[in-house]
């Protein structure tokens, strides 16, 4: 356990060293080294700017994500449970390959440059993984589990609530985790395209780009990476806690 952690630390240090060497060799404003970026990062954190941008970005993501969960989760379960919905899935399959970023022009036309258009892009990003995984979780419920419920006297409704949905938890939670990850990636790109208020990590990067401050750009990128990593780790941990029963089943 400790060995793995030391190894991870070593790898990070090695990467930072490599970065420093490259930056030193290239010696250009385009490639700021880790120390400079680190200094900028600390500066932004201490001044509270970074926190402000991060919180706003997070708020946008959470809003879009919750919206997606609210709609895609029950829809996915319903689509998986009801045999008639098979046809509906055709539309889903056609919409899914469209990358969320391609929706940006439409989002800006429909919702403008404010909060709603960002939330919309994030919603699109999170929607399909959540929908798919909920759908699959339900669909892939082993029929003998359903039959077991039946012989024990459960109604269709009870089978859905007490057997199918709990059994689908691992799949659903994974869908949520993936959806949140994609939502986070979409957010920054969405923020790069015009904003009503000058806050957000994507905005920070866009502004730094205009001003030619490559170190701020990288500091922003690091913040995005770190937050994304934390969110993913938290969700993973939650998954493991909630789904203790999965064990090593394949």
């Amino acid at each position, binding site marked *: 356990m400790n060995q793995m952690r030391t190894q991870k630390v070593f790898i990070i240090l090695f990467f930072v060293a490599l970065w420093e060497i490259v930056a030193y060799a290239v010696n250009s404003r385009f490639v700021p080294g880790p120390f400079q970026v680190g200094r900028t990062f600390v500066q932004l954190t201490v001044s509270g700017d970074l926190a402000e941008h991060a919180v706003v970005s997070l708020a946008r993501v959470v809003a879009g994500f919750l919206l997606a969960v609210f709609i895609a989760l029950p829809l996915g379960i319903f689509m998986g449970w009801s045999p008639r919905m098979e046809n509906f899935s055709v539309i889903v399959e056609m919409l899914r390959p469209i990358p969320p970023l391609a929706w940006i022009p439409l989002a800006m036309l429909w919702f403008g440059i404010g909060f709603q258009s960002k939330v919309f892009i994030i919603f699109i990003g999170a929607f399909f993984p959540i929908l798919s995984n909920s759908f699959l979780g339900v669909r892939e419920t*082993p029929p*003998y*589990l359903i*039959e*077991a*419920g*039946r*012989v*024990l*006297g*459960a109604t269709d409704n*009870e089978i859905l609530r*007490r*057997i199918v949905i*709990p*059994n689908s*938890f691992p799949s659903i939670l994974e869908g949520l985790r993936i959806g949140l990850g994609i939502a986070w990636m979409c957010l920054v790109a969405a923020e790069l395209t015009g904003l009503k208020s000058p806050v957000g990590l994507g905005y920070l990067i866009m502004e730094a780009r205009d001003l030619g401050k490559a170190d701020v750009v990288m500091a922003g990128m690091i913040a995005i990476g770190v937050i994304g990593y934390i969110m993913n780790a938290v969700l993973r941990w939650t998954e493991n806690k909630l789904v*203790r*029963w*999965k*064990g*090593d*089943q394949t």
Partner: protein
Amino acid sequence: MIRLENVSKSIGDLEILNNISFPVKKGEFLCLVGPSGCGKTTLLKSIAGLRNYAGSIFIEGTQSEGINRKIGYVFQEFSLFPFRTVKGNMDFGLEIQKIPRKERHNIVKSLIELFRLEGFENAYPHELSGGMQKKVAIARAIATNPEILLMDEPFVSLDAQTRNMLQKELLRIWQKTQKTIVFVTHNVDEAVFLADRVMVLTKRPASVKTEFPIKLDRERDRTSYKFVEVRKEILRELEVEYVD
């Protein structure tokens, strides 16, 4: 207790069950033996109300249609609810019947004792061995105290020792609870060990071929001469169905 009259089933052009009629006495242990794929699972599921069929099935004199509270079922697969503990699995049928918590607790407690699963009440299925999972499955099926227990090759995926142990356990519980058991298997040795009566089914479409009452004393000895003879006889009947 159970009576099948002219039970048939086809899916499209494919005939699966062909005009099956037979009775089952109350408290009897009946084994259905047949070649693989003959339709024995379909037959059992039809009795349970999980499949449609042509013909009639009577349970204690009344025609049974659909799920019947008097019937418990044990599946061929490992069919415990993986997201529920041992206790939770046993509780399921009782919850559905809206039995109050205290009573449920007592029933589950006595089941744990009966099946000798003390210490595993809060274990999840994935933590149990195959044999124990099967025990819990049987417990779950009889938790609501159905008079009839249908079992579809429940021990087929277990190793020989575990299977033998479970067979003995099953007989012990049968003798204690006096349920009517219809047990499907393709393993003749198992059938002879367990059953009061063995019915051999033809290959698909299944129909009743021959009946063999087993008149051996309980606490049967697999190595005894009589056991081996009966087994030989039934095997011969069965083997014919495998040829062609």
